[in-house]
């Protein structure tokens, strides 16, 4: 019983520290934005280098969705609606969630490891002794880059899954669904609100994953074990947070 209380207490203490840390980061964001070169560099690190995995995953998920959807829809003679099925599943759920999960695994873990190593090798201390704030110089640019990157990557994921290589390739090219009805049905039943909600989800996920990653890295024990814990912690905590937040956000957006 007391063990359970202790776990809950330490969880809440961690949450408090993380929120306090977040305030510090947000304070450093204007300084980071004033030096766009730092942010662009990080955007390349977390964004551009995650592109390949996002493109490939998006394509495969779109293809699988089209195969499965076709099997069901064709029984009702509704295979013209394949585009709608693929599009709404991707835009509303799979796009933001899978992109964020992949981002946590590819970029979040790398961020945490990099920051943890900078701490373990005294680089952050050295910055402080040189009177430069590591929060402004190291943490905030990485955080901002993460927040920007996830919505962009989500959009790319959706385009791949619905159009170029995913649903379109399987549905239209392979299974022979009429291209005209594939696209016109998509246009008819997708609303601007769906896209807005996708971007909101992606923004929230990007914020959360980046926050968790920089927090884990910055508070890692300065040893190799500490860095490896921070990396694992980033992926595990981010994944759970993404799934839980997705439920909450979906419940709020449900009409």
């Amino acid at each position, binding site marked *: 019983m007391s063990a359970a209380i202790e776990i809950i207490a330490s969880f809440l203490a961690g949450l408090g520290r993380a929120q306090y840390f977040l305030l510090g980061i947000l304070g450093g964001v204007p300084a980071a934005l004033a030096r766009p070169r730092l942010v662009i560099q990080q955007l390349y690190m977390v964004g551009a280098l995650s592109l390949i995995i996002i493109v490939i995953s998006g394509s495969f998920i779109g293809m699988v969705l089209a195969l499965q959807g076709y099997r069901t829809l064709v029984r009702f003679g509704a295979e013209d609606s394949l585009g709608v099925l693929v599009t709404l599943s991707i835009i509303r759920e799979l796009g933001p969630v899978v992109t964020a999960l992949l981002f946590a695994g590819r970029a979040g873990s790398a961020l945490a490891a990099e920051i943890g190593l900078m701490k373990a*090798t005294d680089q952050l*201390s050295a910055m402080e002794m040189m009177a430069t704030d590591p929060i402004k110089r190291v943490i905030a640019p990485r955080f901002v880059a993460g927040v920007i990157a996830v919505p962009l990557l989500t959009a790319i994921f959706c385009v791949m899954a619905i159009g170029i290589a995913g649903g379109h390739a399987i549905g239209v090219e392979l299974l022979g669904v009429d291209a005209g009805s594939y696209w016109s049905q998509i246009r008819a039943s997708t609303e601007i609100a769906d896209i807005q909600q996708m971007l909101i989800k992606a923004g929230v996920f990007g914020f959360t994953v980046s926050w968790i990653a920089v927090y884990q890295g910055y508070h890692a024990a300065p040893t190799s074990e500490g860095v490896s814990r921070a990396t694992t912690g980033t992926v595990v905590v981010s994944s759970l947070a993404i799934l839980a937040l997705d439920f909450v956000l979906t419940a709020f957006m449900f009409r």
Partner: protein
Amino acid sequence: MTTPTPQADDVLVRVRGLSFGYGSRVIYDGIDVDIPRGKVTAIMGPSGTGKTTLLRLIGGQWHPGAGTVAFDGVDVHQLKRRDLYALRKRMGMLFQNGALLTDLNVFDNVAYPLREHTKLPESIIRDLVLMKLQAVGLRGARDLWVSQLSGGMARRVALARALALDPEMVMYDEPFAGQDPITMGVLMRLIRTLNDALGLTSIVVSHDITEVLSIADQAYVIADGKIAAHGTPAELRNHASPWVQQFLTGADDGPVSFHAKAPDYLADLMGTAK
């Protein structure tokens, strides 16, 4: 410890009654240290006694449990963040392992403090950086990445970086570790020359006793959270304490045992130790 305390103005860093511990582990237990202005002060002591910790306390990175650290009359640990940063521009620090920024190359590492804190044009920064690199003999290594440097080279680049802003005081944490004899001689003379020519104040933490005592004006020996000895190099060499003598000469028999507490060696090997 009979050295008279220097006059107030002669002391750049005054440490009084400083106590510090990591968690429950006591590192310092009420020590007093004076770093005189314009002099080279050596800090020596067994590995793990807290020499690096002392430098971090002076730089305001750790907060003491009790006591004060005053830099030029200002209590370092009472300062607001902004003032502390302003103060740190007046201190250079060479970290024990270099602590170079791994996402920059050698040139940019040395240029980093200049770019962050001055609005100098790039051509002047280039000249300044090359001058600092020339002083540590690494002008030719300017385009290397940090991962391509040896430990000794990294420390010399870090030295150039510590000097970049022309600080009033430089703290050197183990500047000689991992250097070959020639480089070591150059670095020793460099530290001394910089100190005298630029009117710096230097704190040198080192295990290389002979070398560091040959350039130091005064030295502190730290052990077990206390100042074990303090004085000029000559005073230390003639110090009465057998402990200090053993530390300075590196003899393996004396009051300090090289071995951690253990059962009798033979009995331990035979498996009959209790």
